């Protein structure tokens, strides 16, 4: 990982020096452990601030929307897929981007780490290949990375970037034997009442802070439907029906576009696993349209397309 950091710094410095880009977007080490932050640098000397490890869970695509300058940006699998979606949806031009591809090994779930050390204060984390060491004032524990991956990363089949101009390292081997939708299948098998109970409990804690929406690169509308007043689609309170309406519609807006980057869950202050909604739609897109978001620049997501000669049986 340190190797990646050095390489990223080197590339950013070069791009800025050669004036190939006006800005470089990456991560810097967070002020707290496990909380790396997005950073935009515009001068070669700032390149040293760039950093990469397994806690870069926020989606950088958010910072690309509607920019008009030339941008260098780092991208792992899911981030690069969101860039593809951004390009298709006219939020950025491909020519504006210099994409520094990062073959990704998955992000570590900071909540799981905190749980593992019983919520004791963590002062530092040291990463050593397949393991990492969590250090506190009076403790030091070593864990296996594999077991602490974010749940989306654990089942990720697109770790390598889809589009890039340069790579920071060798492509990693893609996972193939993962069953990505076990959790969704479990919900699908429930009877309607149980399902309703499941989703009601799932969003029971939601405080409607919209952090999930704000962290999501797909949510770039000038005015979100939750803020519309004529007509008002969703009430402002935390009435469970309103909250459910919000989550349903947010997920629906992501159908065929979500790359399961996990930013929404990562930023949720209440720890709500709202990927249950988007994953179901991802699964449907895969099964009904053989579609995974952000893999090609040539085709728009299935819900954006009108075809009179739809070849699927479910439309007649």
């Amino acid at each position: 990982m340190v190797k990646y950091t050095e390489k990223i710094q080197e590339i950013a410095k070069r791009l800025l020096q050669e004036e190939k880009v006006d800005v470089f977007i990456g991560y810097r080490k967070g002020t707290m452990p496990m909380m790396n932050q997005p950073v935009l640098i515009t001068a070669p000397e700032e390149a040293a601030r760039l950093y990469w490890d397994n806690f870069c869970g926020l989606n950088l695509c958010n910072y690309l929307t509607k920019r008009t300058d030339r941008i260098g940006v780092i991208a792992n699998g899911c981030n690069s897929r969101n860039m593809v979606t951004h390009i298709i949806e006219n939020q950025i031009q491909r020519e504006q981007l210099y994409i520094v591809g990062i073959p990704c090994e998955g992000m570590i779930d900071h909540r799981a780490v905190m749980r593992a050390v019983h919520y004791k204060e963590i002062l530092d984390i040291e990463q050593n290949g397949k393991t990492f060491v969590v250090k506190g004032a009076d403790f030091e524990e070593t864990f296996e990375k594999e077991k602490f991956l974010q749940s989306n990363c654990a089942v990720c089949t697109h770790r390598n970037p889809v589009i890039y101009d340069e790579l920071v390292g060798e492509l990693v081997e893609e996972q193939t034997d993962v069953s990505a939708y076990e959790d969704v299948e479990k919900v699908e098998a429930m009877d309607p009442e149980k399902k309703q109970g499941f989703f009601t409990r799932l969003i029971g804690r939601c405080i409607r802070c919209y952090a999930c929406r704000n962290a999501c690169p797909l949510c770039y509308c000038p005015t979100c439907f939750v803020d519309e007043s004529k007509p008002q689609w969703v009430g402002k309170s935390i009435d469970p029906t309103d909250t459910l309406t919000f989550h349903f519609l947010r997920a629906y807006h992501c159908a065929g576009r979500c790359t399961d980057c996990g930013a929404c869950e990562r930023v949720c202050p209440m720890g709500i696993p709202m990927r249950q909604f988007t994953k179901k739609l991802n699964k449907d897109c895969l099964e009904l349209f053989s579609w995974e978001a952000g893999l090609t620049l040539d085709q728009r997501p299935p819900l954006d397309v009108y075809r009179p000669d739809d070849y699927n049986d479910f439309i007649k």
Partner: protein
Amino acid sequence: MESVEGAPGDFTVTLVNYPRFIDPDVCTGCGQCAQACPITGVNEYDCGLGKRAAISIRYAQAIPLAYNIDRDICIGCGLCEKVCLAEAVRYDDRPRKTELRVGALVLTPGSKVFDPKDLDTLCCRESPNVVTSMEFERILSASGPYLGHLMRPYDREEPAKIAWLQCVGSRDIHRCDHGYCSSVCCMYAIKEAVIAKEHARGDLDCAIFFMDMRTYGKDFERYYEDARNKHKIRFIRSRVHTVDEIRDTGDLLIQYATEDGRLKAETFDMVVLSVGFETPRELIDLSRTLQLQLTEGNFCQTSSFAPVSTSREGIFVGGAFQNPKDIPQSVIDASAAACAVGEILSPSRHTLTKAKEKIPELPVVGERPRIGVFVCKCGINIAGVVDVDAVREYAAGLPYVVYAADNLYTCSQDTQDAISRVIKENHLNRVVVAACTPKTHEPLFQETLAAAGLNKYLFEMTNIRNQDSWVHRDSPELATEKAKDLVRMAVAKVALMEPLQESTLSIDQNVLVVGGGVAGLMCARTLSRQGYEVFLIERSNVLGGQALDLYQTWKGEDIQDQVCKLIDDVERDVRIHVYLSTELTSVEGFVGNFKTQVKTGDGRTSQIEHGVAILATGAQEYRPEEYLYGRDPRVMTHLELDRRFMAGDPALKEIQSAVFIQCVGSREPERPYCSRVCCTHSMESALHLKELNPDMEVVILYRDIRTYGEREYLYRAAREAGVRFFRFSLDRKPRVRAGEDRLEIEVMDTILGRPIVMKADLLTLAAAIVPYRDQKLAQFFKVPMNEDGFFVEAHAKLGPSEFATDGVFLCGMAHYPKSIDESAAQALAASSRAVTLLARKEFQVSGTVAEVNPLYCSGCGVCVEICPYSAPSFVSEGRFAGKAQINPVLCKGCGLCVASCRSGALNLKGFGEDQIIAMINEM
């Protein structure tokens, strides 16, 4: 029609109007009379499978929706007259004669289906479970005698096994003297089998007994493949000679011979006879009166280059009277006939048009809604179930409602006058009518609003008859509550309605025709004859297209003669501008105002401004890679053989043995469509070879012979001339070897069950027809293309010669492979569709269109991508550059973009987000 006198441009037609004993202008179609009528008769529309009263409508969708008394069974009891509040009954109605003065006539009398009752071996007299395909259509219909439940007539049980017998009354000169193929039965039998499977609750076994499967239409071959592989319909190649009823069960025993000569018997629960077309006796008599020439099969005679002109000048024909044909072909004919009429009558276009008086609109924007609600009793149709007084009272208390009334018939003329007066007196600025269906009556009330000076969109109609009183007869209280809900919803919606503007668009009177083959030439000639300037673009350096290489039409006409004449007409026409060796480089604009850049062979570019465009870019013959083609000079394609015929090649006479192989490159996995014309072409060529040398051995190797319609006579003639036929299947295609002195062709003989080898001096390949796949052209005009590379029309059945994109039309082989007469007909059809726009000179756009709020737009482009009509685009400059905009001219008001817009930037006027939500909220 009794007689036709006079000449083209001035005919006098005498018509006899048979009495219907109901005044159709007064009848509201409410149906009270039929409920009162004590008489029960046979429902002819349901093919005798259902019943009706003596006073009836033929079918529920009939237009006009007016009743008719069957005086043959009516007992004159007077009940219908008593219950008819509209006073529409006229017992003393008499036949009337009408004289019409017209410039031209179009005959579209259709055909009748063959009555199989005399085919005694098919058991159709004895067993109710042997039905015709028409009867089976009624059985499957949701509005039919069994409400769409699959049942057999004998015991109303659901059948588990159904057999279809093809060619009943067609391709049969022994039992019914119908040597022609009826063209449509193979396809409808497959369709009926697929739908029957959908309707069946149990596992339904469908078997279709056929001789040749003739799925030659666009996308039909795929449908056939799906029926076989996906729906597991069994296709049995055998003509069934006998059907026997099994006495106790009503089941039917079918005995048949398989292709390899074995005899088999199988029992079915039901048998459907796929009956064909037959010109009825009266029509033959009428043709005689009109002095029209008929064909051998009693269809109306036409020629290939004038496919809708009868033998009598000024009289045109279309549909199944011209030849057996399906819906798209009939629709093409209909438009073509209209075009042919336009050619002779265009000078008198618009001479009888009257302009409507325009009443200035009252300003209502910004005013508080003042809503008037009119609740209709519809005689007792609504009032008999719904408590109309209660609904009116309720409406009066709703927000913004300042006036509420009820009417006996809200649609009557005096009520229109009253509504108009009420609007003015009460300063109403919104109107709700709670009555029947807006589908038939909305325009009437909108006219009334306009007459009172209100924008016609400040109106909402809610349906408390068809969707309330008529369907909830037994729960009057709940029906009344529903009516109140519906009125409340309508009031909530109309309160949010704003006046909408219908913008006007002028239509440039020039036409761009792309493609200079037969289709394009026909378009250019007819449009010029109707007074329009035509720009004809051809990519090659000659006009004529594929027809230049064709010898004869299936009717035996010399193609070169006709094509030369056509080219000559076009080249000499001052209104037609021909651009050879020319390609399109860009297209801007939309219906009414296109700007197209073209580049000619010498590199010069020019711009053409035109109101409409017709794409007639054609297709070409496939270059085979199989069967030694290109490696042995004795192997050639149809077009190459035709060229030799035209050159009068003396070597052809010396040939001792000629073989044809069908479906070369067609009906194969990589090209899964039928090229439609090749079977007929092989028959013609085989017959011509036989003519050159009657002793020549001629063999046709085929998969299914698809000589549809009266082309079937060629197949018969070929057999009579001694041409031999061997069938092969896709998995055992023939093998061709270059022998020492002659070609050796090995084919599996299905009867012997072993391969046989034949020697040939000439092998003709019926090569597929492949489209040009002009992606650029498709993008220029924003028109779709299917997987095979043919353009996709607006509607496979009802819009075969136009695109969903307004102002762009389609004809010829760019649509699908077709013969010259079919291309000519479609060229006229596409021109006719173009003229419907051109003749109007300007175009009124509906007010119900989408609009964009650019402040909400994220520029994601979903709307641009998803719209089938290319109405949305991006703003190219200014403050809102990159945001979406809607072209109201192209918008059809479907709302697809609105529902797809995540940002909420789009709205549909007249069906606004706030309006629909208001209705949901009031529910």
